[in-house]
């Protein structure tokens, strides 16, 4: 149920949103950004939008709405439903027998790899994390009004909360999303950012340790 009043200013909400979008960063400076990305510079915001091939306000709003309603998880879930219909032995044999030049072979390998690891929403964490980060960038660049940006961010946060059971599952969903989109069957993202993800989950000062996964996101709760 949507809240009647936006309550972004509550400390718990700010921390929760910061923790959700913290996973979007990677490599050496990732943890620094994870802690302090609430107020990104204009230059960084423009860079983020460019990375996502977003050139103007309309494209940004379309992308954010698409990430909330559909996202890349649709394609992942389509393959997931397809593979889940097969028996265990048939599924393995089917993927192994696919020719190397099959257009979806890598994606099928990845979906199979994450099949029993992720909840039914699959890689939705990737969509929601980017939705929040892009909303921040849009707010900073003046493409979005504050209320509008907060509404998008809280919508994504609520969906993420429903889709996953905790922070570790959320990170796994996000990384699976990156692997699926590349697609990368050598799992380099997890390899390169192992320390970062561990610290996000284990450090006392990490935003993920400062806010409970089940924090109430509605104003009347």
């Amino acid at each position, binding site marked *: 149920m949507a809240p009647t009043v936006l309550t972004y200013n509550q400390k718990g909400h700010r921390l929760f949103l910061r923790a959700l979008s913290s996973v979007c960063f990677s490599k*050496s*400076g990732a*943890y*620094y950004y994870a*802690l*302090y990305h609430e107020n990104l510079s204009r230059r960084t915001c423009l860079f983020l939008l460019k990375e996502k091939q977003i050139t103007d306000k309309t494209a940004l709003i379309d992308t954010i709405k698409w990430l909330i309603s559909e996202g890349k998880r649709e394609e992942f*879930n*389509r393959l997931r*439903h*397809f593979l*889940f*219909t*097969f*028996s*265990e*032995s*048939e*599924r393995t*044999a*089917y993927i192994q027998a696919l020719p190397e030049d099959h257009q979806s072979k890598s994606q099928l390998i990845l979906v199979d*790899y*994450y*099949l*029993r*690891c992720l909840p*039914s929403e699959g890689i939705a964490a990737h969509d929601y994390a980017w939705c929040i980060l892009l909303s921040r960038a849009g707010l900073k660049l003046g493409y979005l009004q504050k209320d509008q940006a907060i509404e998008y961010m809280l919508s994504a946060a609520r969906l993420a909360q429903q889709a996953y059971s*905790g*922070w*570790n*599952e959320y*990170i*796994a969903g996000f*990384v*699976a999303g990156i692997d699926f989109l590349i697609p990368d069957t*050598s*799992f*380099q*993202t*997890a*390899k390169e950012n*192992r*320390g970062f*993800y*561990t*610290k*996000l*989950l*284990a*450090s*006392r*000062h990490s935003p993920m*340790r400062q806010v409970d996964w089940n924090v109430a996101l509605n104003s009347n709760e």
Partner: protein
Amino acid sequence: MGVWEVLGIEPTEDIQSIKKAYSKKLKVHHPEDDPEGYQRLREAYDHAVKAAKKGDIKETGPSFSDENNIHIWSNPPNTVELTVETIDRLEVIDPVDEFMEQVEELYSDFSSRIRHEQWSKLLNNDIVWNIRFKEIVEVTLLDFLHEHRFLPKRVWEFIEYCFRWRELATEDPDDRMEHFTEEFYHFYCRQLDEPALRYTFIQHAADLDYDVFLNKRETGYQALKENNLELAGQSLDEAYAMYSDDPDLLRLQGEYFLRMGEKESALAAMEQGIRIYPDDIDWYLIRSRIWYETHQFVEAKDECLYILSRMPANMGTLRLLGKCLIQLGELEKAEENYLKILESFPNDIDAITSLAHIRSEMVERAKRRPFFTRRSVIKRLYKKLGKPNFFGSVKLFWMQLPKVGVVFTLSFILFLHVLLSNSFINDTGLTPISYLKNMIHPVELSSTEVLNQLDYSDIAQIKLPSVHFLGITEYQAKAQTGAISTRYNSSYSKQRNWARSILPTGWFYVAKIDNSSIVLLVSDANQAVQIQKSNFIDSPGTIVKMPQELPEYVWEVLQITDFGSKYKDSKFVVDKLIVVHNVTNEVPVKAVIYSVLLLVLYAFLLRLFVRTYKTVRF
């Protein structure tokens, strides 16, 4: 004669009917025996299919002369010849019909139909490989399979091996696709490419209309692949109502119920499956998922252990077991389990994040231990979590520090310090440090003893009630080389009074402290005027070395002036000179601005360091 007459049917949009007619006529107009008739038939067939696809069967199309058709349709003028030819045709027709009768017979017997050896035997029949009959056999068989399609995967593979339909359709789609309906072509490809459902479990079902059941099961299977849950549910339910002991159907139902969130129904389907065919691992895989999702962690764990006893390297089950162990609080076992996963898959994100979660939980547990035992445990756990030691932390701090920001801020701070210092010296004659030193520990120059204790560059508060202007002034000139030369002018001396209409840079005074005479230099004109009027000094001053030639000037003045007599009995301090500074109570605006800017920059620098520190600490 029109295309429909050649085919021997009424105009129709039903492609299947056109195909049937074509294959029937093909037996009469074989390409080798009757190339013209075959050509005519082929053209008629192509035209009819195109017209049917367009939905325009009234289109006239090519017409064929009766003369060309004489061997087929009209009453033959030469009865004997025609009879001979008809007999020949009958000889040709028989093997194809006979073959198709065998196909139909095989298909109608379900137990035989599902045995690929039977099809292998049948399709190795000479007629299939005979060049004369091959096309007739293919078209007729394909037509038959459009309506009778429920065969095991191995049979389809053998059919493709014999006829290479897909291979040829890929090479020349326009030609080959005419024989396939689009729907059947996709069905055919799916049978070859994707896992298929099993047939063996339904062969003993009594009074089952196999094709109706299999059609419903297949529809449900495809709908489930596409996540069309409404169609899947309906088809699987209908199939289940016909026959409830098919393991594949039960597995599909279990998957359907799971997607619908109907976990109890899913569990019931799995348990029924286990009763029918306990060897299938899928029952246990799905049941472990259901138990975990319904928070029956003990049952889920036991199920996982059973699966792993049969499939030790099953990743999905290892992961689920880990999750169950976490939920049951068996953190050590869970850790061991995830480490096992990492041995096989070092970059498994589920294992990485779960281990981080487990170990941070262990840290929280360890904190509840007695003080003396917890320290080493926590230290060991943090090490496992990747917490660096002191040197590692320093290295990490350096790596994380935003160096460009720090260098830029430090440069600006240094620049502001220079500006502030210059501004302060200009305003007060004191450096900021000297000023602060005098403020914190003020030294009053009240006696000779204090004067003797003061060293060069020291600052003291000069508070002297009676001072006299010596008439000596200082002039500083800058040479072309940039060097500054200092000269003194004494207005009481004839030889040393050389300056005319030039503003001096300093005025010298003399004052008595106890029984010593000390020379003071005032650099500010206003202050000098003020002192001259009041004969009183109350300002900070710095002790500096007396310029070498100055004592002579002073001595001369004291000798020739009236006030000099007051200093005759005193001891003249020749090595120290006091430079008096003009410190007013007015706020030095520039210095304040620079100070505020400096404070902001220092705060910014501190913030950078604190932020970096926070990223390093664990």
